[in-house]
């Protein structure tokens, strides 16, 4: 069940009123939301419901043990065990096949056999997101920012359906207080919620899927069939597509939660307006960036250490950011490129007082990101090389049609415009009367639905992570 489908609409039409009807009685309300969230997850594959439940119970058990213990050594052992459990789940389901295959290749090279069976394990949808939320939960308990809540609250925090499969990665300290105090039925951000749902739908279905269908997928499937102009368009179109696909999902997730009286942190803030890579990562997948900052970069020593050590910390963090996306050399290369360039960028700031003009810095960041997405998008590094090699090949611009070109300009260029008029417009729309909001939602869904191809809505890109 994904957001832009009739199944989800029907699901939400039941969940929304029942959730508000039960809001006054916390236990039934939370039980209902937990049941709805597990139903939502089971609709993708019921077998992985047990994994979700297991991760929840395991982390909750460790959270309680950590909380009860005053012995720093024991607490450390418990947190290490909890994080090992979560990373272990990721390692088995996400990285096992890649790791064993590469290890076997390396050992074969020195005449040794395969130490482990080479298996391709089914990837549970959203595993990277809910394990990170679980880590956030036990870490916050370990840091004494949070006392373990009831098992019901912990389970609902990890599995709450709007953010379960593709984020945003919400901190326990942000979500759990919302469960302990009843939501105020007189203070619901209805306009903002509906507007975010509409914006998310347009981004995903009308823009991201169109760019994929018209430009990105054909070029990345057979790059040899296209000349430099088409390949260049496809590289920037993919940057626009992945932004609309992922931010569209989180817009819808945030909008759905708002209508239920709950709020999530923002996950994107005009990333293509960034003037440095550091700023870019403060605007792109913001909840992952802050997770990596708070639970990896700072524990490694952050920038309080010496300059060389801080550079290593940053590089390691960015490489692991790449690896988080999946088990493939393309993601590792993506992380290495970003880590290396961010270290260079930081060094340049220390050494030189010159700063490039905004337009140049902005253009560079967008282009750097778009080109580093090539190994991210292709199935292997050889194909990434083939895509980049085609940039030197002449050929007719067969894909430069007005619709995809305008979409790329609108998505990337639009973020570079001053935000104030757009924010003002959003506020005006959010403040429209309820009948206008309802009419706008219906008409938007109808128009967006008309752009869906006969084979349905393709899955969100970040579902595979």
């Amino acid at each position: 069940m994904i957001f832009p489908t009739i199944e989800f609409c029907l699901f939400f039409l039941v969940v929304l009123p029942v959730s508000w009807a039960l809001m006054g009685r916390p236990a039934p309300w939370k039980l209902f939301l937990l049941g709805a969230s597990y139903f939502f997850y089971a609709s993708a594959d019921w077998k992985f419901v047990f994994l979700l439940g297991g991760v929840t119970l395991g982390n909750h058990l460790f959270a309680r043990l950590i909380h009860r213990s005053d012995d720093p050594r024991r607490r450390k052992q418990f947190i290490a065990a909890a994080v090992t459990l979560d990373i272990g789940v990721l390692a088995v389901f996400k990285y096992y096949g890649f790791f064993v295959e590469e290890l076997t290749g390396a050992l074969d090279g020195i005449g040794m056999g395969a130490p482990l069976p080479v298996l391709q394990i089914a990837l549970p949808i959203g595993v990277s997101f809910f394990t990170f939320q679980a880590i956030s939960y036990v870490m916050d308990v370990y840091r004494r920012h949070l006392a373990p809540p009831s098992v019901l609250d912990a389970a609902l925090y990890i599995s709450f359906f709007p953010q379960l499969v593709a984020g945003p990665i919400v901190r326990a300290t942000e979500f759990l207080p919302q469960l302990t105090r009843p939501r105020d039925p007189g203070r619901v951000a209805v306009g903002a919620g509906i507007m975010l749902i509409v914006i998310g739908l347009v981004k995903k279905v009308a823009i991201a899927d169109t760019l994929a269908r018209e430009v990105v997928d054909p070029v990345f499937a057979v790059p040899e069939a296209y000349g430099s102009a088409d390949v260049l368009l496809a590289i920037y179109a993919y940057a626009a597509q992945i932004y609309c696909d992922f931010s569209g999902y989180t817009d819808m997730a945030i909008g759905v939660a708002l209508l239920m009286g709950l709020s999530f942190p923002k996950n994107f803030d005009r990333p293509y307006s960034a003037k440095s890579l550091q700023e870019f990562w403060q605007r792109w997948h913001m909840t992952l960036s802050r997770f990596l900052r708070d639970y990896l970069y700072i524990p490694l020593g952050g920038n309080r250490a010496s300059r060389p050590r801080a550079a290593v910390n940053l590089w390691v963090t960015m490489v692991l950011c790449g690896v988080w996306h999946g088990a493939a050399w393309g993601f590792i290369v993506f992380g290495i490129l970003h880590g290396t360039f961010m270290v260079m960028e930081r060094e340049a700031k220390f050494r030189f007082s010159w700063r490039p003009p905004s337009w140049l810095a902005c253009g560079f960041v967008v282009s750097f990101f778009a080109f580093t997405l090539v190994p991210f998008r292709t199935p292997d590094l050889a194909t990434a090389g083939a895509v980049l090699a085609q940039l030197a090949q002449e050929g007719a611009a067969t894909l430069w049609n007005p619709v995809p070109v305008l979409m790329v300009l609108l998505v990337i260029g639009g973020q570079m415009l001053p935000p104030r008029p757009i924010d003002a417009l959003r506020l005006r729309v959010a403040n429209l009367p309820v009948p206008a909001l309802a009419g706008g939602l219906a008409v938007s869904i109808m128009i967006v639905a008309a752009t869906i191809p006969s084979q349905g809505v393709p899955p969100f890109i970040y579902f595979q992570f």
Partner: protein
Amino acid sequence: MTEQPLRPVDEDVHVPPGRRRTARDAIVAVLVAAALLVVLDGDGIRRTGEKMDTGLGRSVVLAVGHPAGWIADQLPFASAADQVTGWFSPDDDLGSADGSFTAPTPTAGSGGSSRVPPQAFSPADLGEPAGDRKALRTLLVTGDSMSQPLDSILARRLSDEGVRTVREPKLGTGISKPDLLDWGAYSGQQAQEIAPDAVVVFLGANEGFPMPTDAGTVECCDADWAAEYATRVRAMMQTYTRGGRTQVYWMLLPISRDDARAEIIRTVNAAIRVAAGPFGAQVRLVDIPGIFTPEGRYRDALDIGGREQIVRDADGIHLNERGGEIAADLLERLLEPQFVYGDT
């Protein structure tokens, strides 16, 4: 990265600016939007439900879609809305209106189904020396999601050889579910419009649906179901061969990890084998299961050059990039004795 200490966060800090309303307003807005959608696009809900795979989701969507469609049919708004939004549609609706499989009309020169053309016999079958190889100018690679990534691997390999590779993957479709895409009609359209020299068909990941026949509806996966499936496959083979002008390569399916799906795949493969019989050399079956799932047992990895490598996707159904490469190698070995690439 800038360092900031963690601290408990005010839960309302993330709520966007704008007027606050009541929970009742939220419910009313969503229900009114749903009601408007029923009036303006109720038929769309019904059509979507009809195209969905059998199961709880389909039953629920149809339970809403039928009355919604009925309401929309009684009012003039839905057709007006269809006209307004119709031009946004990115493709033609290729599904069968009544859910039936359209037996393709034989293309010119293809003859009737009982007529065996001489192309059914290869020179090797008759103990004759190999004849001249034909030119492969256009290759069509089609099917459901199984045809990926094979289609792009073949297209990339043949792009420098002067071969135009047309890739037409139709994801989520199946021969037994013509609601979504009627392969009977669509294969005829492909054969006529593309007129390929060779066709690669890799189709069958989404089969197992009940099929109506003259004797009633048949359920997967007994002999009646297999017979109907084979009849449909045979009709498509007849279409694609274009009276001997097109060489068809029909890929048998590798067994899946999931046992229930594996049973369907075994039946589909058996039906394809039966369907291909009369075509002889015109339709070559590509023994994918023999390579990827020898002895009918699912495997994630194969020994390639003395090293175990993963060849299947995480879903246990599709071939991954490496698996696609192996399938493409096999196809190239079949294409090379029969064709000269491009015009040369």
